[in-house]
């Protein structure tokens, strides 16, 4: 009994609760509406199915949201990830070239292609980081510059064309499988582990959170906030680079106009859904992954329900609004009676109510 109570308390206090609830809700909806959503088949030794699809398609978003989490945690934001995704893809496609008649060859060895794309993307992140940490620009503006110019750069590389990539080993990145699961899943897992290690097994996580809450105090405590900020933006660029490779590999081409469209917004929303505050400070990598999964499963669900794709945006907007509202304490307080009425229908809901009702008064008198 005590264990259950403790679990309930932890669930009530954990920031991951609401995102998990949202994700579960989407899953439940699918369960009722299209049970085949959960079916997983094995074809050619690989796993297939809607669930796998979500993981695969959501990989770029998950990667971007990891980088974005750290940036937001320092109190900043990175609006340039979309165009950087495009730049990475464009660079790769450009270096591979397209032979004279779309042959399956490459002008540059694949490892070099990947390296170049990642380098350029990381350089973009570094540029952002320098503007923010050394020149002292506001993140929204600094990354806005690259966001604006970045599209132009990508278009410059591809000369406005869609460059098709015929070199099949390249397709493996986005479309290949490893141990029955899509390769992208492993990429995401690897980056997640790397970030988790960097932030929780070294002092970097503490520094990032400290800077996000109060960068002056962090400076006085000897934290080199300039270097930390430089690092997080660079990492964000790096993530965008990987995402760019995956995206262009999936569509077997580089489309400078459309690649990465809306990605930064999705990434920021994923981070917000995951419980990290836009003001900076405490962050949760797992939360952002959850947020990305929410967005991705939403998209997949909407497609499978048969809603015309045009409507997706609106539905996305509404669902995200709902989650944000639920996360907003104000909203919960104002609508407690209604929400309470719903939740108290179940025992689980009642305990959730009890545990999430935080004492409203902070430090009492002064």
């Amino acid at each position: 009994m005590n264990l259950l109570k403790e679990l309930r308390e932890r669930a009530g206090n954990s920031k991951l609760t609401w995102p998990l609830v949202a994700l579960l809700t989407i899953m439940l909806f699918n369960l009722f509406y299209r049970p085949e959503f959960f079916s997983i088949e094995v074809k050619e030794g690989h796993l297939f199915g809607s669930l796998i699809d979500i993981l695969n398609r959501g990989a770029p978003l998950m990667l971007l949201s990891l980088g974005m989490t750290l940036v937001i945690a320092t109190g900043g934001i990175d609006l340039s990830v979309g165009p950087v995704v495009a730049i990475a893809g464009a660079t790769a496609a450009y270096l591979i070239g397209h032979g004279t008649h779309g042959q399956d060859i490459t002008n540059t060895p694949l490892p070099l292609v990947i390296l170049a794309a990642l380098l350029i993307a990381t350089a973009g992140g570094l540029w952002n980081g320098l503007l923010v940490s050394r020149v002292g620009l506001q993140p929204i503006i600094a990354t806005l510059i690259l966001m604006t110019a970045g599209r132009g750069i990508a278009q410059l590389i591809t000369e406005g064309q869609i460059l098709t990539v015929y070199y099949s080993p390249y397709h493996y990145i986005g479309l290949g499988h490893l141990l029955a699961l899509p390769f992208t899943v492993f990429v995401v897992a690897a980056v997640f582990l790397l970030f988790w290690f960097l932030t929780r097994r070294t002092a970097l996580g503490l520094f990032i959170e400290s800077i996000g809450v109060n960068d002056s105090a962090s400076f006085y405590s000897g934290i080199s906030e300039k270097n930390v900020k430089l690092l997080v933006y660079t990492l964000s660029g790096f993530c965008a680079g990987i995402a760019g490779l995956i995206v262009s590999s999936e569509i077997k081409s580089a489309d400078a106009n459309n690649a990465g469209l809306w990605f930064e917004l999705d990434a920021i929303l994923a981070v917000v859904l995951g419980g990290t505050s836009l003001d900076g400070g405490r962050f949760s990598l797992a939360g952002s992954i959850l947020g990305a999964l929410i967005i991705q499963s939403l998209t997949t669900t909407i497609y499978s329900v048969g809603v015309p794709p045009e409507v997706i945006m609106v539905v996305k907007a509404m669902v995200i609004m709902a989650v944000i509202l639920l996360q907003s304490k104000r909203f919960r307080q104002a609508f407690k009676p209604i929400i309470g009425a719903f939740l108290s229908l179940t025992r689980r809901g009642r305990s959730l109510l009890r545990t999430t009702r935080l004492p409203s008064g902070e430090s009492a008198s002064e």
Partner: protein
Amino acid sequence: MIEKLRFFRKYLPLIATIGLFILMFALTSVAFPAFFSLQVFFNLLNDNMFVLISAIGMTFVIISGGIDLSVASVIALTAMVSAWLVEWLNVDPFLTMGLVLLMGTVLGAGMGSLIQYLKIPPFVATLVGMFMARGLCFVISTEYIVIEHPIYRAIANYRIYLGDGFIKPDVVIAFVALPIAIFLLHYTRFGRTVYAIGGDEQSALLMGLPVGRTKILIYTLNGFCSALAGVAYSFYKLSGHGLYAYGRELEVIASVVMGGTLLTGGVGYVLGTLFGVLIQGTIPVIIMFQGTLSSWWTKIVVGLITLFFIVMQRALGATNSRR
């Protein structure tokens, strides 16, 4: 004497923007004599008024310390709904214009309410608004809707001749909106409250200023401006589509910032916004005249110029604060 210097320093970003525009205009005229014509200048206005109208509203938002990412989407939505109403539902054009303006105002009020009452950060609230508006465009139609209505066409082709050149009606609209905006900001309590909120919202509250009401009004006003810009845009394009004005919200924001308005809020000039728009509008023209550079360079150059302005703003303002 020190007073004069102080004045100069305070308005330096604004002066720099105006100066830069004049410089750009002059240099380009020297390099490409064909550029130095009244009509070219007028076309600068003709092609960019919708940006200016939207930027006027955005100036209010940014001075108050907020931001609105939905503007370009509302422009697109306005154009789309206008086309839909006029072409598919055969609504009278002027009624249509009135309706879409109302729509923009209501949308703005909605976002303002979210920001004020539910304390959702402006970035997030207007981001969702941006999704919503574009999404609604596609719900109406995934294809273009062309406006054939004679009245719309007449307005779109209407020319007002001034000397050797002509301007379009939206220029008039914009230049009527401009002094109204200046009056609002500098001579009304509403406008001063906007500045106060941007300067220190907490203090504004404690001083008894109607912060909540004003904030909602700001976004409502901006919604109206976006819709008005959308009406101008619909004259420009004579059609509606979900991808119109894609990405232009940044252009709007950049214009405001170039005009000397601080993103942190509390300081800003509508007049500067005008020149910010003009500068951004000049760049693609220069590139076109130049001929060899591809149009992709536009975006890059805009980015770099914006960077220059921000750095300068920073260099001037930064001497006060420690960090």
